[in-house]
C-alpha cells in the first residue's frame, strides 16, 4: 500500500468523482433529513426548519411506540430464526467437500439475487386463503377425514376451514426470514470456512461431545461472523418496508411503513425524518458494536 502523499495527483483523480457523488447524492440528502428531523410541519404540509425534539418525542408517544416496539420484536424474531437456521446451514457448507460446498453456496446465493419485491409477494400465493399452504392442509385434512371414516367415525373433522395466514404478523416474519437468511448465512460461512478445523478435532479428541464442541469451541470462535450476521440481519429487517406493506395488513405495520406514510399521504416529512433517523441511529450503534467486536477478536484472542 502506498502513502497518498507519494502520488497525490493519481489519488485525487481516483477519489474525487466518487467522493463528490457520494457527498452530493448521499451525504447531503441524509443531512437534509437529519435537519428536518428537528423541524416541524407547516399548515399546508410543507416542512419547516427549526430546532426542537418534538418529532422524537412524538415517536415515543404510545401510538407510535407500539409500532416501533413491534418492529423491534419482529426484527429480533427474524434475526433469531435466521441464526438458528443459518448456523447449521453455514456449518454444513463450510465443512462440506468442495464440490458439494459450491453447489450449496450457489443454492443459498441464488434467491439473494432474485428480486426482493418478487420474493416478498411470492408469499401471497403461498399464504392466502386459497393459497398453496391452505390447499396442502386441506388435502391432509380430507385424507385424515377419510381415514377416520374408514375406522367408523365419519365426519369427525367437519368441513375444512382455511386458515387466515396472510395479512398478519407471522406472514411478515416468514417473508423477512426468507429474504434475510442469506445475509446471515454468508458472514457465518465466511468465518467458519476460515476456521482451522483442527480446533474442532482437538476438542473432540479431548473427549468433548459434538454439542460440547459446538458450544465451547465452534460458536466462540465464530463470534465475529455471528456478530456481523446478527447485526446486519437485525438492521435490515428493522428497516423493512415491502414485507409489512404487502403481507402485514394493519396488524403487521412496521416503522418503515410509518416513515413511508409520513412522506406520502400524511405529508409530515419532519416526523418521517425523525423516524428515519431513529433507524439510522440504531444502524450507527450497531456498526460501532461490530467494529469493537472485530477489534477485540483481533487483539485479545489472537485469532
Amino acid at each position, binding site marked *: 500500500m502506498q502513502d497518498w502523499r507519494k502520488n497525490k495527483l493519481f489519488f485525487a483523480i481516483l477519489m474525487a468523482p466518487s467522493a463528490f457523488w457520494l457527498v452530493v447524492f448521499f451525504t447531503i440528502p441524509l443531512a437534509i433529513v437529519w435537519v428536518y428531523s428537528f423541524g416541524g410541519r407547516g399548515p399546508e404540509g410543507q416542512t419547516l426548519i427549526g430546532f426542537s425534539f418534538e418529532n422524537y418525542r412524538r415517536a415515543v408517544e404510545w401510538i407510535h411506540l407500539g409500532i416501533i416496539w413491534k418492529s423491534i420484536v419482529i426484527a429480533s424474531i427474524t434475526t433469531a430464526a435466521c441464526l438458528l437456521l443459518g448456523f447449521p446451514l453455514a456449518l454444513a457448507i463450510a465443512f462440506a467437500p468442495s464440490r458439494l460446498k459450491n453447489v450449496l453456496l450457489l443454492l443459498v446465493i441464488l434467491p439473494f439475487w432474485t*428480486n426482493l419485491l418478487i420474493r416478498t409477494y411470492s408469499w401471497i400465493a403461498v399464504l392466502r386463503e386459497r393459497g398453496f399452504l391452505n390447499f396442502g392442509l386441506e388435502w391432509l385434512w380430507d385424507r385424515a377425514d377419510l381415514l377416520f371414516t374408514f375406522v367408523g367415525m365419519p365426519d369427525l373433522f367437519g368441513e375444512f376451514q382455511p386458515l387466515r395466514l396472510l395479512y398478519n404478523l407471522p406472514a411478515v416474519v416468514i417473508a423477512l426470514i426468507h429474504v434475510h437468511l442469506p445475509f446471515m448465512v454468508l458472514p457465518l460461512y465466511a468465518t467458519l470456512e476460515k476456521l482451522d478445523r483442527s480446533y474442532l478435532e482437538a476438542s473432540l479428541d479431548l473427549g468433548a461431545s459434538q454439542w460440547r464442541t459446538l458450544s465451547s469451541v465452534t460458536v466462540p470462535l465464530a463470534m465475529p461472523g455471528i456478530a456481523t450476521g446478527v447485526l446486519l440481519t437485525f438492521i435490515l429487517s428493522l428497516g423493512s418496508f415491502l414485507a409489512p406493506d404487502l403481507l402485514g395488513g394493519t396488524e403487521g405495520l412496521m416503522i418503515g411503513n410509518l416513515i413511508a406514510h409520513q412522506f406520502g399521504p400524511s405529508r409530515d416529512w419532519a416526523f418521517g425524518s425523525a423516524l428515519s433517523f431513529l433507524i439510522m441511529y440504531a444502524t450507527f450503534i450497531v456498526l460501532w458494536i461490530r467494529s469493537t467486536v472485530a477489534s477485540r477478536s483481533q487483539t485479545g484472542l489472537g485469532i
Partner: protein
Amino acid sequence: MKTGMLAEAGKAIGTATRARPKRRVLPLDYARRRSIQALLAGIFVFLYFPIVALVAFSFNNSRRNVTWQGFTFDYYVKAFNNASLHEAFTNSLIVAGVSTLISTALGAMLGLALYRFRFPMKGLVDGWVSLPIVIPEICMGVAMLAFFAAMDIQLGLATITVSHIAFTIPFVAVVIRARMAGFDQSLEEASRDLGAGQWQTFWNVTFPYMGPGLVAGALLAFTLSLDDFVITFFTSGPGSTTFPIKIYSMVRFSVTPEVNAASTVLIVLTLTLTVIAMVIQGRSGKQMVGK
C-alpha cells in the same frame, strides 16, 4: 479341490461383506449427517418453494387456481402486449444502463484508491463509502426524496438514475477491491523496472488485471439497479415507472398470472446476468493463476 474352491468362495464373501460401504460419517462431515440433511432440505424448500411456484404458475392455464390446469404461454403474450409494462421495462433498462456506466467507472476508481492508498482517517472513509450498502433502503429512499424536493428537482428517470448510481458505487468498489486483493504488486514494480512510466504501467499492467472485476462489477450494478424497488419508489415521479414499480402496483391490485409472467422475465434476466458475472469472476481467477 472342491473344498479349496469353497474356501476361496467363502473368503470372497468374507471380503465382500467387509468391503461393503458402511455408512459411517466423519466427525466434521456435517453435510452428511441425516439430521442436518433433513434441516438443509427443509431450508431449501422454504427458500425455493414460493419462487418456483410463482414461476411454474405463470405457465398455468387458469387465472386463479392453485392446481395445475395445463401449460400455456398466454400470460407471457398478454404481458408482452401490455403497453404500460412495456414502457416500464424500457424505463428500467435505460436507468440500469446509464447508472451502470457511471457507477462502474466511479466505483472502480474508488475501489482502486481504497486498495492502493494509505491516507489519514481511512477507516472512517471506508465506513462512510460502505454506508449505502448497510443502511436500510427506506432511509436512503426518503433522503433522496427530501433532497430532490429541497432542490426543487422534478422527479423522473434522471432522479432515479442519480440515486441508483449513488447506491451502486460502493458495491462496484467492493468488487474491484476484492479483485485487486489478488494482484501481485511486484508486477507493477517489474514494469517500472523495465522502463515503463507510471501511466504506462497502469494501462498495460494494472488495468488489464482489473478487467474481470470491472465486468463483474458492472453486471452487479446493472442487476441491483434493475431490481431496486424501495429507493426507486421514493425517487420516481409520474411517467417514470420502472418495471419493479409497475409490478408492485399490479400486485397491490391482485396477484395474477400476468404479473407472475412479468416477474419471471425479470428473475430470468437477473439470474442470467448474475451467473455470467460469477462465471467471469471464477474463470478469470483461475486463468490468472495459471491453473
